[in-house]
Each structure stands twice: as C-alpha cells, then as structure tokens.
C-alpha cells in the first residue's frame, strides 16, 4: 500500500452566498506522496486555494477528511490546528505575509520560537545561505524587494522542517524573471532538504516544473489531466 503524506477523502466545502450555495470543493480525493512536487492548476474560483487551505489546516471542511503525515485534521481544536501548522506545514503566500516588525531572521525562526523549540542555527544559516539571504537577515521586510521577501517566506516555510510546504501562487506578485528565479530556488531547496511541495499556480510554464500536475475545475479534480512526469 502506498504511503501518502497528504490524503483527502470526499472533501467538500460549501459556502452560503445570499440565497445560493457555492460549492468551492465538491468531493475531492487528493493525495501527495512524500518528497513529491505537485502543482495544482485551475481557473480563478475553481477551488484550488480552498483545497490548499484545507490541507494546511487554515480552514475546516464541510464534509470529508484530511490526513496529513498520518494525522486526521478533523476534530482538531483551533489551538491544535495552530500547533499542527507550525510543526507540520510551511506556508508560502502570494503576498509573502512576513511580519513587518520582525527582521528576516526573526521571521524565519518565528514558528520555531512560538513552539518553544531550540532554533537549529546551522540549519537556519544554511537555508539563508542557499536562498541568498545571509546579507539581508537583519533587514526588515519593508526594506526588501518582492523577490527577496518571497525568498524569506520560503526560508520561513523550510526552517521548522515541516512535513509539507504549501505555496499559494508564490510568484503572483513578482515579475517574470524574479518569479522564475524564486521558483527555481524553491524547487532546488525542496529537493535539497527533501521536502514535499504543493504549489498553486496559474502559469502553465511553472506548473511544468512540477513532478505532477493536478487540475481543479468547479471544485472537482479533472480526471485524465493530472499526470506528468
């Protein structure tokens, strides 16, 4: 039997919008293997971000189950979900979402510090070095370029050695060159640090860099388009 780092079964997420019910996810069965790089593509409003949020424990499903690293997220309290996120998930957002008052280093080690764990300085230094941020570690996010901020966000996602990295359109706010640069680095570090990576993108070129592409349409995974070597 294959071991999945992520597995969703019959995942549904419905919203009420006025008199209408919006089916953001409508029975999604989705799996990711360990150290796999999966790209999720789909049109705006197709449900790809919702799927990512469910997997990351940011949102709770209307129905169905999410298993990450062998643990079911259903039934977890908010506190447990927060702890789960900081230990098992590394997020990379389109808007970087760095804490503006903390410098790069502080941002990177924040989830570890919040967990009360000892910061692995050598590992952190290595990540910063690989992501070419050593010189910028004391800079506040406001002093960095978009590409640098996103690299800092990648460093933060890696620092706690999570089970999975979830990236929601990480290049959406970057120009093409910076976008490719950041994505290249992301792929390299994911391989280097043996990380599982799930990435959402609009960009077919970027999706081509993944081990596998999953296409979502109207809250469901489209069959037959999800394979790529």
């Amino acid at each position, binding site marked *: 039997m294959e071991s999945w780092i992520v597995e969703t079964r019959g995942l549904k997420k419905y919203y009420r919008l006025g008199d209408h019910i919006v089916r953001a996810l409508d029975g999604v069965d989705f799996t990711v293997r360990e150290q796999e790089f999966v790209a999720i593509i789909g049109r705006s409003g197709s449900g790809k971000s919702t799927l990512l949020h469910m997997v990351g424990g940011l949102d709770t499903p209307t129905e169905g189950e999410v298993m990450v690293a062998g643990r079911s997220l259903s039934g977890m309290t908010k506190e447990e979900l927060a702890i789960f996120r900081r230990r098992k998930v590394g997020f990379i957002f389109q808007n970087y979402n760095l804490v503006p008052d903390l410098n790069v280093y502080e941002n990177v080690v*924040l989830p570890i510090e919040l967990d*009360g764990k000892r910061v692995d300085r050598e590992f952190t230094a290595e990540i910063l070095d690989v992501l070419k941020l050593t010189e910028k570690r004391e800079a506040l996010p406001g002093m960095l370029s978009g590409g640098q901020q996103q690299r800092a966000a990648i460093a933060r996602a890696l620092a706690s050695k999570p089970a999975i990295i979830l990236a929601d359109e990480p290049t959406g706010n970057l120009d093409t060159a910076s976008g490719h640069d950041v994505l290249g680095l992301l792929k390299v570090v994911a391989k280097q640090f043996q990380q599982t990576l799930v990435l959402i993108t609009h960009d077919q070129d970027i999706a081509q860099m993944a081990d596998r592409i999953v296409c979502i349409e109207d809250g469901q995974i489209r069959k037959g388009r999800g394979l790529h070597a």
Partner: protein
Amino acid sequence: MVFMLKNNNTRVLTRMAGRSLKSGRRQSVTMILAVLLSAFMLFGVFTVGMTYFKMQRLQNIRLGGGEFDAIMYGVTDEQLRTCRENPDILRFGVHAVSGYIDETEYDNTPEVTLMWADETCWNEIMAPARERVEGHYPVEEDEVMVTEYALEKCGFHGLNVGDTFTAVYGAGAVKCEKTFRISGIWEGFGEKSAFYVSEKFYEQTGLDPADVASGRFLIDFRQKLISQEEQDAFIASMNLGKQQRLFFTVDFAFSVQILTGIAGLALVICLCAYLLIYNIMYLSVAGNIRYYGLLQTIGMTGRQICGLIRRQMFLVGGIGLAGGVLLGSGVSFLVVPSVVKSLGIRMGKGGEIAVSFHPLILLLTLLLTGITVYIAGRKPAKIAVTCSPMEALGYRPSADVRRRGRLGGSRRKAGRQPRSGCKDTVRDISPSARIWRMAKEQITKDKRKAGIVMLSLAAGMSVFLCIATLLTSQAKREYNYNFRDFDMVVKNSTMRKEEQEERVQIFDQTVLDRLDAIEGVAETAPLRYAEITVPWEPEFADMWMREFYETWMNIPYEDEVEEYKEFPENFGSSLVGISKADFEALNAASGEPVDEEEFLEGKTCLLYRDGLEFKSSDVTGKSVTCAAYGDRTHTQTFEIGGLVDVNDYTALLGYPPTIIVSEDVVREFAEEPIIYKIGIRYREEYDAKTEAEILSVLDAGPHGKDYSYESRIEMKKEVEKAQGNMMEIGIGIALILALIGMMNYVNTFVGNIRSRRVEIAVLESIGMTGRQVKKMLILEGLLYAGGAWVITGIAGTAATYWIYQSMNYTGAEFVIPAVPLLCAAVISVLICISVPAIAYREIEKKGIVEYIKMPVC
C-alpha cells in the same frame, strides 16, 4: 474660451454619504456614539460643572450669611460715596452691630447680639442665605426680626410674629430693659444668634457704621473675576483708616486662580473629546481607504471625495451632537434634580440650585464638538484624497513601510547590536519572550499612534485623578475652629458680663471631675485667667497703649493717659494661664519660637498682638508688669518672650495686653483663677454619645444656662448642610469622565485590533495559537495602560497639583487619594486585559482565510 460649469453633484454625494453610513452601520454607530458621548460629556460636564460651582458659591453664601464679595469693618460717608461712584460695585449694604441682649428672665447669659441691616443688605445681600421669612423687617424702634435659635438662647419658647418679650440689652454705654415686638421670624444661614433691629433703634443707640466695632460693610461686585492687582487697587481706593480692615471672600479673592483651574479642566475634557473622535474617525476613514481608492478609479475627484467625507462627518456629527445634547439635557435636567431631591435638598428660595439651561453652554458644546469633528476628519480626508487609486487599493493603516525602513536604517547607523540574527549574538528566546517582544514592537513601531492612545487614556485618568483629589480634599476639610483641634470647647458665658462680680466660676472642680469621669472623654484642658491691670510705665506700657489707641480708638491717647496712670483699674486686662501642650501648639504656630523652659518657669510671657503693628523685636526682651485687679500691691513682672496672633488664648480683651503665661503662674498669682474655657477631646472622634453626656453634666449644674459650646459634630452638620449635594455631583462628573476615558481606550484598541486582523491572521497561519495571540494583545493592552499611567503619574499629577493649588484657597494639604486611584488602576488593568481578549474573540470568529490573501505591507 472654455467655461467651467459647476457640476451639480450634491445630491449624489449626499446619497452616497448616507448609503455608506448605512452599509457600514456598525462603524457608523461607533462614530455617532463617539460624537454623542463627547457632546454629552461637554454639555453634561459644563451644565453639571456650572451647577457644582454655583453650589460651591451657595455654600460660601450660606457659610458667610449672604451674597457678598468683600467685607469692610467700619465705613465712613466718604467711603460710601466712593462705593456709590464705583461702577464695578453691583450693590453694598451696611450690617451693623447694634448691641447685645444682656439677660432675660430665663437666661443670664443668652449670647445674642442685636444687629441692624440696611435695606440692600437685608433684601438683596442676605436674601440668598435665608430659607424662610415670616413677617417683615423691623420698622418701628421696638420691633425685632428673630430666629427661633436666638429666641431659644434667650430662653423663650413658642413665640410668634406679633408676640412681645422683655430683655435687658446693652448698646454702647446704654444698658436698659426693653420690651421688643417680634415683627418677623426667619430661618436659614448667617447670624442666627442675633435679633435684627430697625434703623430707628440703631440710630438711638448712638452707634455709628463708621465705628469698626459696629459697622460691617458688605460689598457685592458686578464682576466676579478680579485679579490681585485689582483687589489691591480697590483697597487703596477705599483709603482705609488705621482701624479699618477689608477682606475679600475666599472664592472672590481667588477667582482668577479658580477660573484658571476650571479652564484647565475644560481643556483636558476637550482634549479627551478630540482624541476620542479623532481616533475613531481616523480608524474609520483609514479602514475605508480602499473604498475611496475605488471611487477614484471610477473618476471621482479629490474634491468630490473631500465633499463626500465632509458630508459623512456632517451626518455623523449632526446625529451625534443632537443625541449628545438630548442625553446631556436629560441627565442634567431630569436625573440631577431627582438626585438632589432624593438627597433631601430643598429646591426653593434661599437655597435653590436648579440646573438651568444656559444657551452659552449649548453653543459652546456645539462649537467644541463641531470643531473637534472637523479637525478629526481633516487628516483622514487628506489621506483619502492624496492617496493614488493604486496606493489606496494596497493601503493599510497599520503598516508604514517608509517609517519602518527608516527605523531599521537608523538602528544600523547608530551602531547598535542587532536584536538577533547575527552569528555572534544569536540567542534562543522563549515563546513568552518572543510574544513580549512583539507586543513591545507593536507599541514602538508607530509611536505617534501609541502616544495618542496613551494620551487619551491618560487624559481621562488625569481628569479623574484631578477631580478625585479635589473632592477628597473637600470632604476632608473639617472646618474645625476649636483650639488644638479639640472635639468640643465649652465657654463660660458669664465672661460677657460687664461687672467683674458677675463673672463667676461656673466650671468648678466638681464639674471638671464629672467631665473627666465620662468614659468617652480622653482629655480636658481648662484655660484659666485672672483679671489684671497693667500699671503705666514709660518703657513698655506707654508704648503699647499709644499704639493701641492709634489703631483701635477714635480718641487720642493723650486724652486718657492721665486717667490710665492714675486709675489703671479702668483699663483692665487678663493674665491667661496655659498648659505645656498649649504652649507647644502656640510655639509651633508661631514663626518665632520661645524658650519653653523659661516660659514654664514663669520667667517669660507671651503677649497677644491684638492687631497692633508691633513686631516681636519691638517688645521682646522688654518687661511687662501686671497687678491683681483691685490690689495694686500684688504685682508680678515678666520678660516678654514674643507676640502671638492666635486668639485662642485670650479671655477678656482690654486695652492693655493680654499676658499669656504658664498655668502654674496664674494659679500662684490669683487665689482662684476663673476657668473661661475648656477644651475636651473624645476617645473617639465625632462621638455623639460622649457629647450628649458632657452636655448633660453641664446642664445639670447651677450654671446650666451660663455656658456655650462649639463642637466638631455641630460644625460638621452645618458644613454638610451648607454643602448640599456638591459631593455627589462632583463624583458624578469624575465618573462620567473616567467612563469617557475608558471608552476612548476601548474604541481605539478595538479599532486597532480590527485594523491588524490581516497581520494577526498571518501570525495564526504560521502557527501562533489563539492563546498566544491573546497573550500578545493583552500585553499590548497592559503596555498601553502602563504608558498611560506613567503619563498620568507625571503630567497628570503635575497638572492636578497645579489646578489643585490654584483652587486651594483653604490651604489644605495636597494628598493624592489612594483608594479611588487604586480602584481606577484596577479597573483600567481589568479593561486593558478584557478588551483585547473580547476584541480578539470577535475577529477570531471570522477565521484566517479571508485575510491572509490581503497584503500585509
């Protein structure tokens, strides 16, 4: 040629303003509430504050017995003319001592004076202090206006208007029996132990208002605000004679200081209101910047956006102002009078303080609130207009990239060690330390905003501190005029008798023993005196008498010096004996202490200055000789140790000095010195039972009617009656202001948390638990509270001290009230803890997903 036609967009802007207020109902309600509360605060505080100060004035009117600003002893025709010509004087009246009731068939020592008040004095100046008048002011020579209190002192009971009574009265050199007819009875405050006589009666006594012993001239000024220089100029214009004295009432003398204090308070209140409205408006408009950006993208000009915001402000301000004024009116005119009524304060003539509408207060409220709303809305409007559509779409009020950038730069430039991240300085920190640091960063990252929040909280707390301090000092003012702060002082009323043989020992050893035997009595301190003469001698007695005549007499010393030399018995005085404790109290009050040992041994004595213009150095070291009254051969000489102004130790005031010596000296000098007053201290303050026992002991003796007394219990009752509900209203103002200050903080903090929900969502997304977020927010709240308390502790205390001292005409000690302050501190801490927790719970409900897609910076 191109003509620019005015675009008639008023209707659409007004409609949009109304719609946006409706759609953002919650935010609109908060803003309206802010304006409403501010208008209410200003209106309520001004109305109730004015009532409070009116009440304080009423208290002074009651304590002084009339509405006047200055009192002058003795008034000449020339001075009357000067006053008539002075346009600053609203009115003046003569209130003259016309004699005294010497005895009645029921009481030998009634201690009731005869007074005459002229028409202005009785009908205008004294009227506000009266509560009830029956009958009319005396016109005929035998008519008197009485109080039940004075009648009782004379031993008369149940007399009414039209009844007559017979009494022996003294006036000047005259002493005769007369039948008086009661023309009227009054009740209220003022000279209650007096019978008011007619002008005809006063004229036949031969007394003259120009005589300082008789005439008291009461002046009521038109203007209630008068500086020290103007007071001095008025005194100079009156050209006072050597015997004359002019005093301003305390609230008039300190009118400028009091007004400055009130202005200071009003300023802080306005600051509170401004900060409250500004914060809410700023947060509200800043939160809507995206909306304004959207309007710009569809072609709305900056001017139109300005107009839109102005209309929103107008709507918010209008609704809030109307509500605030209505609420203020309700509280001022309905709640306050009902509280006054429930406290038993009569709302009638003579004591009425009805909360009255004053258009100026309404105008001031409208103006101040309007200006505050306008100023508070200007900056946010400017932000909305100057922000480009693209910037507006990414605008976030809590993030200021440039400022943070500069901060980071400056830190490096200053050469300070980085907080972390450097290989050499990297330290692991605990989650608590990290949260603490983040809370601290939140305060320091936008110092201006944090400053405003702290300042607004501090302003509310400072006003609370100030009013609490003023009220506590007011409550603690005990009005104890008894010497050495005794709980009760009983006086021998036979001391007022003209003839020496009528002045008798009513407090003999038996009475003293009975008083000492009362369980609640801790100490009795009898003061004894012996009647003496001070024989003429050139060195001291002559000098003293010359100065005395110059100061107090209308006839020259030369006319009587021969009589004094030959018959010193015609110029009697007293030798007063005081205890060691009395001496210590006198020495402590005196600026020039005297050697205790020499005084107690009887080598030195003290002299009562009696208003003469002597300095201690003029008499110290000289000798004074006294002789027993009626026995010129029995003399004793003392070295003069100094002069005292405290008149607690005077018995019979004569022309020669009152000589104060040790009590043993008096006992040795006279066979049985008369006890003229006894100070009594209770084991427990304000012990009514002990006081009743003392009175029953005194009443039981043969001289049961020949004593009078003053007690702290009686003084307290009188002051409480005079104060009315001043205290309750003051507490009300303090509580309203404290509430406003706290609401300001609550509003600001809730707004602050709401505006940071994206940032909080980001922290949650990377694994910060709800508990950790709450902890961080509570720490921030506590830091705000701490900062506010530091500001209150420094600036608030300094302002309070300044306001307090400017209004402290009683000279009461500045003491910060610990209990109210502690309560305020506890409440503020509780609020600072609970508000962040509640505000977080509210945003927590909405989840994280909605916000993490928004930009943080």
